């Protein structure tokens, strides 16, 4: 895998996908699963697969992402040779180039030129999975594919969210990619993860410049399925694509299922994240916590059911949290009740307050709000 580099593309189109959660930050740094940020899953997969050179392409609201990634040490990517690099918009080219992913790659062509790797894995930042890229690259090579796209038969059909469905021949070559509002059970849904050679990627980026550039998927892959040998790689493991607040909530809650917890977090590698040095979580006398996921550093005195607590959350005795997601350093006062809510970081719920969402939509409280 020394010859494969990773590109994590934080699409500009994902800017406001998750409403209040993507208000202060880009999709890649949305907190997920009690202690992670969305980008941790693809990034850890790349690092665990032995990729030594990973670039994160960002467009906007990337302060928290840079803070989170740091030097890449948490993923063992703080390297003299290669390692992790964050590539914000290129100031020389960017103003004149429309915002397409191929244009961003073109703007940073120096980075690609200087990298010794010949194969590139391009992935979106909002895919929650634990991937062995080695197998996928082997598949790409064995098929003699020019482009390999990933797909899953387990991705949730989001209400109203159109998904791209694949039609394949018996050898796995992609015949058609069509957008479907409603997807039948177990349909082959495209994931924004691609494998191709670095030369092809740069060639495509340059060639499309004259007409203002385009996106790799919609502008190159989809219209050229006959021209290029595009194969599809089935990702069999648990996979979630987080692109609406409903899906964010639903997939978060899936982590409470022990089989999914086991499947996602341990194999083929552990998911790494920024180290926070929190002590173990402390359960006080009288606390009652069931069917919940908790990070370190929490102090729990109250009752927590079917919920997810991030690092450093304080739940006072007498507080009641149900079906909710409570992010880092929130404080829930005595007698407060939370039901189907998502609290962003540093939210403080005063004693005795009740906050609830509806069956259709959880309520989202933005960062640092005092309720």
């Amino acid at each position, binding site marked *: 895998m020394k010859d494969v580099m990773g590109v994590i593309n934080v699409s500009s189109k994902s800017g406001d996908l998750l409403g209040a959660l993507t208000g202060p930050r880009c999709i890649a740094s949305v907190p997920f*699963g009690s202690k992670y940020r969305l980008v941790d899953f693809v990034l850890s997969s790349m690092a665990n697969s032995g990729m030594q050179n990973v670039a994160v392409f960002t467009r906007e609201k990337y302060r928290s992402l840079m803070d989170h990634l740091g030097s890449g040490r948490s993923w063992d990517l703080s390297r003299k040779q290669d390692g992790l690099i964050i590539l914000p918009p290129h100031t020389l080219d960017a103003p004149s180039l429309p915002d397409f992913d191929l244009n961003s790659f073109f703007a940073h062509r120096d980075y690609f030129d200087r990298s010794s790797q010949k194969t590139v894995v391009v992935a979106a930042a909002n895919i929650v999975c634990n991937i062995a890229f080695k197998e996928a690259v082997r598949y790409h090579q064995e098929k003699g594919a020019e482009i390999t796209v990933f797909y899953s038969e387990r991705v949730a059909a989001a209400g109203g969210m159109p998904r791209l469905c694949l039609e394949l021949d018996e050898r796995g070559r992609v015949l058609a990619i069509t957008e479907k509002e409603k997807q039948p059970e177990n349909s082959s849904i495209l994931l924004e993860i691609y494998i191709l050679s670095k030369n092809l990627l740069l060639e495509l980026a340059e060639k499309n410049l004259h007409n203002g550039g385009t996106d790799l998927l919609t502008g190159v892959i989809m219209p050229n399925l006959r021209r290029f040998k595009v194969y599809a790689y089935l990702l069999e493991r648990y996979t979630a694509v987080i692109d609406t607040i409903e899906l964010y909530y639903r997939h978060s809650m899936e982590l409470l299922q022990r089989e999914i917890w086991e499947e996602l977090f*341990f194999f083929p590698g552990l998911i790494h994240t920024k180290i926070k040095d929190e002590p*173990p*979580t*402390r359960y006080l006398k009288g*606390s009652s*916590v*069931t069917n919940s996921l*908790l*990070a370190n550093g929490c102090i729990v005195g109250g009752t927590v059911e079917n919920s997810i607590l991030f690092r450093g959350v304080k739940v006072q005795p007498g507080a009641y949290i149900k079906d909710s997601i409570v992010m880092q350093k929130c404080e829930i006062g005595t007698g407060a009740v939370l039901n189907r809510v998502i609290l962003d970081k540093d939210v403080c719920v005063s004693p005795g307050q009740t906050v609830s969402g509806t069956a259709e939509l959880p309520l989202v409280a933005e960062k640092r709000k005092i309720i």
Partner: protein
Amino acid sequence: MVKEKECVAMLLAGGEGRRLGFLTKELAKPAVPFGGKYRIIDFTLSNCTNSGIYTVGVLTQYKPLILNSHLGIGIPWDLDRKEGGLTILPPFVQEKGGKWYRGTANAVFQNLYFIEQHRPRYVLILSGDHIYKMDYSLMLKYHKEKEADVTIAVIEVPWKEASRFGVLNTDGDGRIIQFAEKPKQPLSNLASMGVYLFNRRILGKYLKKDDKNPLSRNDFGGDVIPLMLHEGCRMYAYRFYGYWKDVGTVESLWEANMDLLEPEPALKLDDHSWRIYTVNPSQPPQLLTATASVEQSLVSEGCTVAGTVRHSVLFTGVRVGEGSLIEDAVIMPYVRIGRNVQVKRAIIDENTVIKDGCRIYDDRTGAAPQIILVEENMIIQENTFINS
């Protein structure tokens, strides 16, 4: 040229910890896990970095493999530095042959060259065996104010325990006038914490002197400190009032873990101004299932709990099956506990598997129940009863 440092710490981490039984079979005492995610040495190392001491020599000798891999190049404590940082100092071979470290003073004596390299004004001698949070910079300030040759950190201990420690008496100004290492008849209950702050030149002088004495056991408390007192050095006691525990025995290790479960623990682990750092294992968040019940406990990441946990400490990656009861226990990393198991007043060491239906507790009536210690990497078969 190496920049001059004000203070260099020498951390003695070669302790065998014989009274910890199985727990130190494969590792040195400073590497024994503590408090749900830490190892004992993390407290001293975190104290160093939190006190602004960034040059730390760690003297290792006994079974150093786990300790060495834990320490690495000091990244978790921010001690990976171009200037100073963390240096592991094992015994080594010289022109005239190699020598094991014979005692605490000899270990530092053999590494005087390391201290000279950094040319500090002060040298802090620490032990990696104790659980406490202490700001050494305040002790250094005191040391300078008193213009002392050496300052010894002391803490008041119960009289009945005083004979386990080096105890001392001071005059009204805090100057040490009497010192006795582990006396049968303690003359005071002010115990030395094994934290010594020396002027570098004085330290060098007395370590050389001590080395020339064939009768010396080359121990700081037993030999060097009494010699300095005898020769009239300016020696001061620095009073420490916080939590401090020597976890030298199975009982005290268990007790120190239980201390963390008090409603207002004397040793606060969640104090952000004085964090305790350790190696992060990248384990997922802890999962408590629908049948879980956890109270008055510390639980770390990577655990899954389906049973009942009361007044216990669960380290990283522990699994507790349905119907099981864990009470007053310390469960070390990656222990797997099956269904309908009962564990009370016990320490279960790393990676051990306890299968369904086992009972582990002292059921004898009469005498105070004993702490039961289950060795690491064991597989305890179904329905086994361990009561001693």
